[in-house]
């Protein structure tokens, strides 16, 4: 049952316990105590976004973490006391907490944070909660900042509590120079990529590597779509280096996906068959360990560092360029969106039941290109048009993605089959693997059957007209 919670910060040096007693008429519920905890959050600030404050070792719902590791944000030491307000039956009707926190660094002097008061509603006693809150808000020096203890502590250690979410935001308007837009996007993407390197190296969770790869892929997309604004030689060099970086980080990511998919794919199997696949899982983990060693060497190596440096240098060169770099970015982006959309419509309409799988794979690659264009430059165009186009594209890409993913999964499973045969429990694992491959093939066929409908929606006449009109 949802209960309201309000946090207030005390601007003055007044003792918060005194305020609670005097202003709210609260009484202590147990003795005040000292607390010492390391507040945690995910790299992309999920706890902060949900308004949840947790210390190390305290439970966090799986749905909230969404597979991400909980990382230490700041160590906070507090003197805290619990208080309650009771009604005429001596029943608790409001719960409060007064806290005087400070952030403790490594050997440095503690940084005091503003004292805070938390007011918590007791279910069924809304009036009492509102009354106490109103009285506290009217008191001198108490302010509802909307800032949690996690946010306050995070800022105190110089970290944005929102974390690094991997999104890039173009601040330029439609008429901004293409060269400046390229610079802005490339620098933001380089920041995201670099921020994710330590987590990917330490394997804190699989999303660090994924976000690193997405940033590289998006940067490659900027290089492709705004190619005209870069000096050709430098562009060719950075494109080659980012391609290398993408390839160097690919195998571990593929195995991460494979391992995650294995759990989903085996849901339909009986317990015994699932257990048979333990040998396969162990094999994939061994491969992952090998590939991780290579990944670490690559990311720590000179080439990766140089790639990131040349990426940033190219961003600066784009801003300094003339010619295409001086054109309005919206004009260039619109040209590209129109062009890629037109090609997708053309290529897709040639696909029929006899087309080879490669035709669908190629269409998916084009779809990705269009998606990145819309992600990077979408804010320059009418929001409802972009939304409608993204929706139709997403539906199509889901089917194409499933078709391609199943193909890759079948390929990987067949590739390990030989090795698996010789492993402990190999023969029974091979039988279970056979069932799995069969199911994957069937699903791939289903995806292919669904393709036609989705494509027709994507390439419908009104959609084409909308693209032509909106990205003129």
């Amino acid at each position, binding site marked *: *049952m949802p*209960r309201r919670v309000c946090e207030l910060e005390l601007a003055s040096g007044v003792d918060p316990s005194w305020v609670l007693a005097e202003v709210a008429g609260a009484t202590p519920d147990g003795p005040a105590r000292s607390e010492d905890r390391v507040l945690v959050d995910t790299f992309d600030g999920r706890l902060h976004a949900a308004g949840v404050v947790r210390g190390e070792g305290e439970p966090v719902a799986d749905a909230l973490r969404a597979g991400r590791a909980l990382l230490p944000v700041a160590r906070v030491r507090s003197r805290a006391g619990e208080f309650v307000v009771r009604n005429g*039956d*001596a*029943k*608790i009707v409001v*719960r409060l907490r007064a806290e005087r926190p400070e952030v403790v660094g490594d050997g440095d002097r503690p940084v005091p944070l503003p004292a805070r008061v938390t007011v918590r509603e*007791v*279910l*069924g*006693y809304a009036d009492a909660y509102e009354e106490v809150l109103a009285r506290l808000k009217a008191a001198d020096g108490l302010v509802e900042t909307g800032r949690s203890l996690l946010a306050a502590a995070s800022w105190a250690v110089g970290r944005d509590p929102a974390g690094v979410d991997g999104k890039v935001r173009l601040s330029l308007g439609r008429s901004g120079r293409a060269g400046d837009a390229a610079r802005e996007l490339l620098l933001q993407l380089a920041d995201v990529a670099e921020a994710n390197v330590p987590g990917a190296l330490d394997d804190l969770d699989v999303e660090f590597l994924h976000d690193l790869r997405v940033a590289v892929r998006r940067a490659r997309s900027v290089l492709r779509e705004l190619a005209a604004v870069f000096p050709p030689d430098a562009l060719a060099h950075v494109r080659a280096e980012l391609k290398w970086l993408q390839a160097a980080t690919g195998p571990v990511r593929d195995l991460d996906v494979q391992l995650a998919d294995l759990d989903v794919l085996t849901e339909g199997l009986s317990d015994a068959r699932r257990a048979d696949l333990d040998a396969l899982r162990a094999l994939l983990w061994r491969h992952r360990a090998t590939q991780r060693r290579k990944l670490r060497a690559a990311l720590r190596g000179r080439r990766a560092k140089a790639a990131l440096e040349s990426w940033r240098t190219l961003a600066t060169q784009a801003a300094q360029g003339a010619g295409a770099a001086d054109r309005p970015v919206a004009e260039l982006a619109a040209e590209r969106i129109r062009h890629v959309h037109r090609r997708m419509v053309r290529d897709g309409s040639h696909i029929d039941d006899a087309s080879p799988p490669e035709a669908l794979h190629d269409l998916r690659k084009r779809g990705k290109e269009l998606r990145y264009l819309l992600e990077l430059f979408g804010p320059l165009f009418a929001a409802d048009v972009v939304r409608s186009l993204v929706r139709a594209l997403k539906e199509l890409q889901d089917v194409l993605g499933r078709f391609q993913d199943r193909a890759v999964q079948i390929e990987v499973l067949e590739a390990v089959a030989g090795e698996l045969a010789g492993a402990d429990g190999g023969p029974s694992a091979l039988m279970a693997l056979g069932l799995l491959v069969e199911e994957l093939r069937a699903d791939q066929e289903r995806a292919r059957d669904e393709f036609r409908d989705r494509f027709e929606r994507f390439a419908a006449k009104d959609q084409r007209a909308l693209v032509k009109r909106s990205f003129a």
Partner: protein
Amino acid sequence: MKVVATYSIKGGVGKTSAAVNLGALAARSGLRTLLWDLDPQGSATFLLRIRPKVRGGAGKLVRGKRDPAEALKGTDVEGLDLLPADFSSRHLDLVLDRQKNGAPGVGGVLDRLADDYDLALVDCAPSISLVSESVFAAADVLLVPLVPSPLSTRTLEQLQDFLDGHSPSAPRVLAFLSMVDRRRALHRDQAESLPERFAGVIASTPIPNASVVEQMATRREPLRPRSDGAAGAYAQLWDELRRVLEQ
């Protein structure tokens, strides 16, 4: 959400004390716990210092006309919420009878709260009625206090017969010896022999006849956590109940 109903045909056998104390123990162990006081006398509601009032009456709840979430009250034990008693629930039988099979009943009310709680304890009125049948249909476990007496096992057998005959998905019965006075030979003897004879049906932990339990009515709060005495006995009973629920 698991549903446990504390139930007894007779009153004054320690049913409500068990519901309140086990509810508090469940909440303190981290389970989001709901206690529904279905006894029109409202003893559990009184013990938790909450006023016995459900707007629109309990009838509207079991007819599905009112959202039970709006009637909930947080107790002084964090994690334990109460759906309070209402004097009108003495007419619940009539409501259920009029609706026959059309009313969502006790199970329907609990279903609407199932996402918000891990455990619901229903403190039933002492009787066999349409209300108790509706509770039996919704409960996973019936927790039955037995005051040691030569007839106590007979009560249990009658209840089991009734359940076998009436409820298509009969809840599991877990009885426990209640108000055990160790100064009395019969109580001592039954507290030792019955749990063994009825292993799995009668909990091995007896709840003593202790003044602290009686004083709950004047202090108006569940027993404070302790490892000995009556509080310790409830804690052990909670462990047994939890194991049954996990099966």
